[in-house]
């Protein structure tokens, strides 16, 4: 049921006995949680894979497998990649953590890169992540300024720190410019389920939301927004084509520079496991072109915020911030430590509803 875009496996297994020769192309393998055509998360990783091929030409050979489930499936496919002489494997979803570490332990000579992960048990496992909350702060600001019903709809995937910090960041910045703003969150328990995401979008609009945000990967919510004449923010890639009037902007995932950098390191023999969390300033978080529907002054404020975050002058989580239950989290002027963000399991003060377990 899952499509496998692997090289012919027989030919591949035959190659495992011979270590890569000096002028062999460097092999980079990718495993994806969704389909490459999702126009969201997986799409952006695949774009970066294509950028790799363009950048290195014949010096690199890439392969990918899409729709890979967490667990045994992922482990089997990464093992197969490692056996077939892949030099560097990019596992591009949070849930691959245990699988990456299991396989990495067995193949110490293969470099493993795990996106948005936190488990690093072997010294050939590298972690990389983007500070998407920086982008969410900007769209939160735009949404807070532009909403007329003071209700923002938020389609969330799973209640994990990554998603919760995104909600909090957007909410804090909407609230800062619009004290009456309210966030309605729907959890769809999937990264990619167009039917469910569309239904969630409709439910949110019925309950008064006039701007939608999503932390799921399909274009279904922006399509619904377009149909119903409200605004929405795209996810991961520019989704303007799916909602020309409604798509205000999107937080872009830009992996190209990092992937090129890491593959280059493998070629040079200088690859070392790292743990990076890059933001707007490093170019890992970007924005789709802003829609003309955003008034000039609001766009200018958004640009200003982007510049301030880039320059390191502003951190989206700057105190005073309380937790939802009223207890203090950040004191006046204090910025959130990364550790707090990466384990965030609470809403900030003012949010309604509860984080599901």
């Amino acid at each position: 049921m899952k499509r496998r875009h692997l090289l012919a496996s027989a030919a591949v297994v035959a190659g495992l006995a011979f270590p890569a020769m000096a002028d062999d192309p460097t092999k980079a393998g990718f495993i994806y949680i969704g389909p490459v055509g999702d126009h969201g998360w997986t799409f952006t990783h695949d774009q970066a894979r294509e950028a790799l091929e363009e950048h290195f030409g014949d010096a690199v050979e890439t392969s990918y497998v899409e729709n890979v489930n967490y667990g045994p499936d992922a482990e089997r496919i990464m093992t197969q990649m490692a056996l077939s002489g892949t030099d560097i494997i990019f596992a591009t979803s949070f849930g691959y953590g245990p699988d990456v570490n299991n396989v990495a332990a067995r193949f110490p000579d293969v470099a493993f890169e795990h996106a948005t992960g936190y488990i690093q048990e072997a010294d050939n496992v590298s972690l990389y992540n983007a500070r998407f909350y920086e982008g969410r702060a900007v769209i939160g600001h735009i949404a807070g300024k532009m909403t007329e019903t003071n209700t923002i709809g938020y389609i969330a995937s799973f209640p994990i720190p990554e998603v919760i910090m995104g909600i909090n960041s957007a909410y804090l910045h909407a609230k800062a410019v619009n004290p009456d703003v309210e966030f309605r969150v729907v959890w769809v328990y999937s990264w990619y389920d167009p039917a469910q995401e569309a239904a969630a979008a409709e439910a949110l609009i019925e309950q008064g939301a006039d701007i939608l945000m999503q932390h799921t990967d399909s274009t279904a919510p922006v399509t619904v927004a377009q149909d119903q004449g409200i605004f929405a923010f795209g996810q991961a890639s520019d989704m303007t084509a799916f909602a020309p009037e409604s798509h205000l902007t999107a937080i872009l995932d830009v992996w190209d520079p990092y992937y090129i950098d890491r593959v280059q390191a493998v070629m040079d023999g200088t690859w070392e496991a790292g743990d990076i969390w890059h933001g707007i300033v490093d170019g890992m978080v970007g924005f789709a072109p802003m829609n003309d529907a955003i008034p000039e002054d609001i766009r200018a404020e958004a640009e200003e915020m982007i510049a301030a975050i880039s320059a390191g002058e502003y951190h989206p989580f700057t105190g005073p911030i309380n937790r939802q239950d009223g207890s203090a989290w950040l004191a006046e002027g204090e910025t959130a430590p990364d550790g707090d963000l990466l384990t965030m399991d609470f809403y900030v003060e003012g949010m309604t509803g509860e984080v599901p377990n």
Partner: protein
Amino acid sequence: MTGAELSSIALAPLIAALMIAATPIMLAAIGELVVEKSGVLNLGVEGMMITGAVCGFVFAVQTSNPYLAMLGAAAGAAVLALVFALLTQVLMANQVASGLALTLFGLGLSALIGQGYVGIQPPRTPKLDIPVLSDLPFLGRAVFSHDYMVYLSLALVGAVWYFLKYTRAGLILRAVGENHDAAHALGYRVRRVRILAIAFGGACAGLGGAYLSLIRVPQWTEGMTAGAGWIALALVVFASWRPWRVVLGAYLFGGILVLQLTLQVVGVRIPVEYLAMSPYLITILVLVIMSSGRARASLAAPGSLNRPFFASG
């Protein structure tokens, strides 16, 4: 759960959403009802639905005609259903095993066919704007503001009801399903009736799947039916093989799906996982009940359901 939160739910849009959510499972279920009435249990509904979803999508993209695409979806799924007919009616394979295989096959086949169609937008099906009716204060929004398939599916249920109850062909189909030996002795072509019923069931499931990929979402994704076929199967038993009860059951199941999201939006704390699980729990329960002989009789299941027919003499 407080009254204030619940009272903020507007009823008209909720009913509207519920009708849309119910349509694909209703289409698939009414088709399966005819199949089971003829004495065949086809567990491949999910596979036929997803095949219909992808066939409809491919047709829509290629022809830019969403109406023609519906026919393509029905045809594609009917062809798949005929594979099941070949296995169970000609080669006398086990129906349960063949049906399950059909589902797995359909999921894989659809993924293969749909490879080049992920992330593409199909031509849109407009919502009907019925003069006068669509402007009614409450009913206009709730009932009369949908696409044509919503009404077509209800009409189809009505047609199936009429067919089974009042036509000679419907009587023959029921006779074949109740007691195939007796029907055979009377000179009816048991196998032919069943093959036609299976093809019809496939076509209906295909329409249900295409409703998802062309109207509901509209997009193609692997596995996008996400269990709707299994719900349709349970629905037939839930409706105890009566067409109008299929409508009731579809609205009930569709209602659970929609209400779950709406309750989340208004901030009612609900165990989402359990609610999302409920249609499948009911399905399992129903299948367990169906497998016991006495319960089966009390549910008014067709007498020859899931019994292989060997023409004798």
